[in-house]
């Protein structure tokens, strides 16, 4: 039973990444594809955070007395994920603006009906 507890966060992150990739590879709607990219980002963020997690320790904030340096989780992945979240939202906003432009030119979001997007 402890196996599932050790693996559940990895399953969550890996599952989100794979579902996102599946959406990007198979779905034909552009907004769906952008949702898939968002899932990939979220999955990677969970992966990074659970790499930095140490069981039984607290967040690396020493604002209360009584937290010893030997008793906190890794702060670096949290810093990386902050960066990754902001980069993710930046890519997403740009992607949606390009989707809107593509829609204005083609009047459809289906990639199989857009000539330049067949791949």
């Amino acid at each position, binding site marked *: 039973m402890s196996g599932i507890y050790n693996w559940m966060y990895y399953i969550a992150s890996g599952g989100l990444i794979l579902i996102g990739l599946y959406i990007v590879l198979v779905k034909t709607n552009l907004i769906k594809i952008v949702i898939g990219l968002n899932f990939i980002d979220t999955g990677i963020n969970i992966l*990074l955070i659970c790499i930095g997690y140490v069981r039984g320790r607290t967040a690396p904030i020493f604002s209360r007395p009584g937290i010893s340096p030997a008793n906190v989780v890794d702060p670096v992945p949290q810093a990386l994920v902050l960066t990754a979240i902001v980069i993710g939202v930046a890519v997403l906003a740009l992607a949606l603006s390009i989707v809107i432009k593509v829609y204005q030119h083609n009047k459809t979001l289906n990639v199989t009906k857009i000539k330049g997007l067949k791949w």
Partner: protein
Amino acid sequence: MVNPSLLIAVPLAFAFSIPLFGLVSKKIGKYIPVVALLINVGISFILIPQILKKPAVVSIGGWSPPFCINLVVGPLGVFLVTLISSIGLLVAIYAISYIKEEPTEKYHMLFLLLITGATGIVLTGDIFNLFVFFEILCISSYALVAYNKDKEGTEAAMKYLIQGSVGSSFVLIGIALLYGMFGTLNMADIASRVTSADPTFLFISLAFLITGFGIEAAVFPLNAWLPDAHSSAPSSISAILSGIAIKTGVYGVARMIYTIFNADGILTFIAFLGLLTLLIGEMSAFRQNDIKRLLAYSSIGQIGLIVFALGIATSLGVFAGLFQIVSHALAKALLFLAAGYMIYRVGSKSIDSLSGLGRKMPLTSFAFTIGSFSLIGLPPFAGFISKFSIVYAAIQVKKPIFLVFVVIALIATVIEAGYFFKVVQNLYFKEGKNVDNVTETSGYIIVPMIILVISIIVIGIHPQFITGLLKGAAGELLGRTGYIGWVLGGS
């Protein structure tokens, strides 16, 4: 000594301040990239002799590596920075009068940030920082490919964005796995610990990283985005994307393989992939009737040649690959700039409509001809030396499989010569139909083309101007213990 962090800080500050200058006058904005990149070119030329004597490791924030982000300015870094800022400067001069589509202010901001991203990629010594600058480069190029806002441009940008962001996600997964294993993000620190880890684990993370960078570098199975993106962007951006952006992807792949993972085992496979890319790129280019698509496919081919040369992994082979990076960057930038202006004057992208331009636009056509001859590898241009040294290096390996590779590479060169001669013949020896009122250009458009032509010829005749730097750079790529020593040991 000049602090190399200025190479990134100065263009960033200028890019942020373009809206402020816009308050004074709308016209200042387009000169800002020129000024910023002029400063960068100056700094990098000051740095070259110092770096060749002693590589510099500059920490950001004042702590010693591996506890902070550091810039590693070795021969390879300073060589690529010089190349990036010089090409960027020339294209920025070209763009002063080429870019007319509104909003020009935003174009110049994005352009300057793209160059900053490329500069950061080649200088940084921290793998997550590499990812951040990679994203800066990618996101600004997505926006710039869609800049014309026409049908092809937005579709190509969408395609590029989807594949590019999957690629950068893969890079981030690779970085996360490496952090989980080694608990550090400094590239030299990872490289010094890499032997202690499980080889299969290393292979998985290397596969993620190479796939991610390979999408930006457009190595064979991952190059679906490139022809569309390069052909429908504004021509100045095509020049930057072909000349610089894909090279940074190659830099990423090379850095991962040589410095971090020391993965000798897959080098022959990489050389094979490069050869496949070369063949497919040249064969697709042969069938094109759209001049910019032709150049884009030819870029794929040339990237294949560079990857092939880097995969040879002798010091001569890496040297030849780096030389090919220089000659391809110069020639392809020149070709895109010339073709872009011809298209602008004629109003059509098809090769047939360019016929007869040799008399109407003599300087531009001459520049185009020089660029294509250099790309084919005719003496006395820069491309001859790079192609010759690649072939020579491949023969010197003395493995039978590399001899087969050389034959295939030569066939690809013949195909390349075929389609470029077709275009040049079209320019000079065919009667044009509707080119009567086309005139030659002047001013900001022609200056960068002339400078590029001169540098192609000068490097072709006197390659010793850059061979010293390139030998140092090849030594940096192959000597990973030296790299680790600069960052962690010593100072």
